[in-house]
């Protein structure tokens, strides 16, 4: 056996080994974040069946692009893919329907007149709060979920959503303000 063939043999073995190592690496990296991935997809799509489709698509993509993951934070990397899968799912399933509405530019960052009512928001029940969040524009919803449930930093939210960190700050502020306004008008409803 010449040198070349000896290395060929090694590569054949390494190929076989690499496939296996890749699967195990993927399992170890990705499976612990299944709840996080599903949670984001569920909040974005609004229902379980579509969320499952989005997460499955995201996991297949993540598996395919695993070699492009360079360390850092796998959850952030994976959630970025989940979000992209969601956007593609939107294109395929909701053609013509714009779920990502541009945020009203004139919406204030902070409540000009903080009312005592707003303080009561911490007593809102989970069901009402879910319904209120579900009605927010998707671009508000996603930053709220990433911040309040996933507890991502502004920097990580910027990575997942592809918007600058400064915009994350203002968008989160607007999202929470919009939520408060929605809650107040919900309370005033007879």
């Amino acid at each position, binding site marked *: 056996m010449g040198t070349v063939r000896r290395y060929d043999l090694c590569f054949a*073995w390494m190929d076989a080994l690499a*496939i296996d190592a890749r699967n195990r690496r993927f399992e170890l990296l990705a499976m612990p974040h299944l709840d996080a991935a599903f949670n984001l997809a569920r909040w974005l799509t609004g229902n379980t069946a579509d969320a499952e489709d989005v997460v499955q698509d995201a996991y*297949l993509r993540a598996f395919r692009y695993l070699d492009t993951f360079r360390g850092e934070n796998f959850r952030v990397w994976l959630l970025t893919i989940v979000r992209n899968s969601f956007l593609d799912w939107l294109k395929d399933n909701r053609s013509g329907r714009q779920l990502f509405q541009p945020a009203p530019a004139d919406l204030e960052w902070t409540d000009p007149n903080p009312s005592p009512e707003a303080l009561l928001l911490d007593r809102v029940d989970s069901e009402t709060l879910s319904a209120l*969040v579900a009605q927010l524009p998707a671009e508000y919803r996603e930053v709220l979920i990433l911040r309040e449930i996933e507890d991502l930093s502004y920097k990580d939210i910027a990575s997942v959503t592809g918007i600058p960190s400064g915009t994350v700050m203002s968008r*989160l502020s607007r999202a*929470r303000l919009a*939520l408060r306004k929605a809650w107040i008008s919900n309370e005033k409803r007879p």
Partner: protein
Amino acid sequence: MNHDRAKHLLYAYADRQIGIMRRFFLRRHVTGCPSCLAELETIQATRSALRTNLPMHRAPPALAARIASALPREMAPPIPRQRLHFGFAGGSLAGGLAGVALTLAVTRVVPPADPLVADVVADHVRSMMADHLTDVPTSDQHTVKPWLSARLDLSPVVKDFVAEGYPLIGGRLDYVDGHRAAAIVYRRDKHVINLFAFVANDRSDAPLRLDTRDGFNVVRWRTGGLSYVAVSDVEAAQLLAFVHLVESG
């Protein structure tokens, strides 16, 4: 810090996402500004409402299994592996890299008695004993391939690797595992290598797998919808080198 700037940063302050210096100056402003203080309380109430009451949707139990089965076939749960000791692993292979790679890589699935392995080994032995090695004895790949394709509904890799030390001897028809199979015959020094190609029920790709039985090495894999099995009494290392040629051929 002035009022407008402070107001702008209140959310980030509540989220603990601003640096220590800005934090310090912001806190100093807020303690002296009733408007900012009230706003901060509202923000914190909103924040804690979201954190305590916003439900986390957990993945349905079946989702993990659904994803696992949708992933490429190699994603199946790991099969217990056992180290396989080859005579050549240390001795016949020089070179640090080669040695390390093999030591790492020489693991394999140890199956219970595998009918396919027994079958191809029997085919292999019969092919040499009955003096019926080839139906079409030629080293011309352009003869062997059409000859096989005309008689079987498949088109396997047929290539003369004489330059690499594995000359093509010819082809014949055979049966493997109950399937009509193309047997492509090669030689390595004085040893015969039978390469079987057939269409199995399972057509999904499968990685290389090495088995040893009665002194014969058997390597099988599936690619492009075709099942391949190489069998020979050459060393496992040489058979794998051959398989690698076929795969990249």
